[in-house]
């Protein structure tokens, strides 16, 4: 069976989430590997969310926010940009493939770009294979007696 990556998408309510909605309403198809979580702003994302997602079995994390300068809260994504850049460097130095983590600026009108990014990122993660370094291996459930 071919490996199907699990990808966590964290999308900003005002741009990327609406962009994803647009991709849906315009009936663009994109891979189903993405699970989207909506946050109010990309600066809402605690870096621990990303580490935790990898621990709980995500193969890739995609963060979407408004274009710099377009933030609903004026400056949120400018803080997020610095913060997530550091997250990426930390993942890289710890020895995780930095390609598993991606930040994209997608506005509410860019349904096409959203579908394109998800397609591309899913392919990228698929090529990297399953993420095993961070993942917590749980013991299988005991069979019912």
């Amino acid at each position, binding site marked *: 069976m071919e490996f199907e990556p699990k990808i966590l998408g964290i999308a900003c309510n005002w741009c990327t989430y609406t962009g994803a909605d647009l991709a849906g309403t315009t009936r663009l198809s994109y891979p189903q590997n993405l699970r989207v979580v909506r946050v109010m702003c990309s600066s809402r994302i605690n*870096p*621990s969310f990303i*580490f*935790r997602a990898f*621990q709980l079995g995500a193969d890739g994390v995609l963060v979407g926010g408004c274009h*710099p*300068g377009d933030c609903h809260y004026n*400056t949120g994504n*400018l*803080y997020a*940009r*610095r*913060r*997530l*850049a*550091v*997250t*990426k*460097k*930390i993942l*890289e*130095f*710890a*020895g*995780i*493939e930095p390609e598993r983590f991606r*930040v994209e*600026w997608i506005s509410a009108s860019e349904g096409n770009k959203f579908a394109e990014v998800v397609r591309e990122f899913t392919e990228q993660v698929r090529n990297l294979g399953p993420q095993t*370094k*961070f993942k*917590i291996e749980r013991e299988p459930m005991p069979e019912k007696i």
Partner: protein
Amino acid sequence: MSINFKHIEDKLKTEAKKLLEQGKVSIVLAYGKGYDDHHPMPYVARNAADVGNIVFNEFCTANLARYLVRYPRGTKIAIAVKAADSRAVIQLIQEDKIKRENLVVLGIPVSGMKNSKTGEIIDSKTTCGLYNPVLYDILLGKEVHGKSVISPYDVLAEYEKMDKDARWDFWKKELDKCIRCYACRKACPMCYCDPCFIDQNKPKWGEKSPESHGNLMYHLTRFHHLAGRCIDCGECSRACPVNIPLYLFHKKVAKECEEMFGQVAGMKIEDKPTLVNFRVEDSDKILE
């Protein structure tokens, strides 16, 4: 470039006594006698009679800025700082944890401090490698003009060259040693959160028992929380009972922050810490 530690100790005592007698400060943070000469402890002098207990020798490595945030706001404090410690003081002022006007900074220019565990001389391999305090009111002793310090980031080259899997194996091996005593957190002048994220139960950010995944979560998040704030005193690695080279990761993050945002932690009082600040012209390239 030999340092007269006895001379510094005498000066520290005189200054501390003067400040306490004049009532300019209510406490003096300095070093006191431990169970032997190799293990001096942080010491708080509260009146002029306490001053006799102050010591200073080459094993006084602890970063006293750690204790600044323990006192109520507005307490007048005099603090003895070495080079890296003074950067911690600046960083705490930037973060509005203490006020400059409540502080009397007694700067100690010093080189050739020794690690009390190993007896090795501490240099820019594990610390920022500065000799002279960046911020001080009273300088105890003469500024040290030694040979130029090699870049504190040089030690990283070996690890940056490594293949990512080798680096993962290295960090996994190191972090698996962690026994979760939180000595790194206790020794760090910048770790003042109450409660720390790892002590929270709702949400529970990571496992609290000393096992691989919880250790990874704790340390990686701690590295992230100290990004752009770590002043590279190396105290976390010296405090660590199982000798995890935490300074390496802190140095790496500090180096990346310096390259990306062009600002070094704890050098100027007017700066804002890098991660609570932004520039519109920050490039998107940093995310690649």
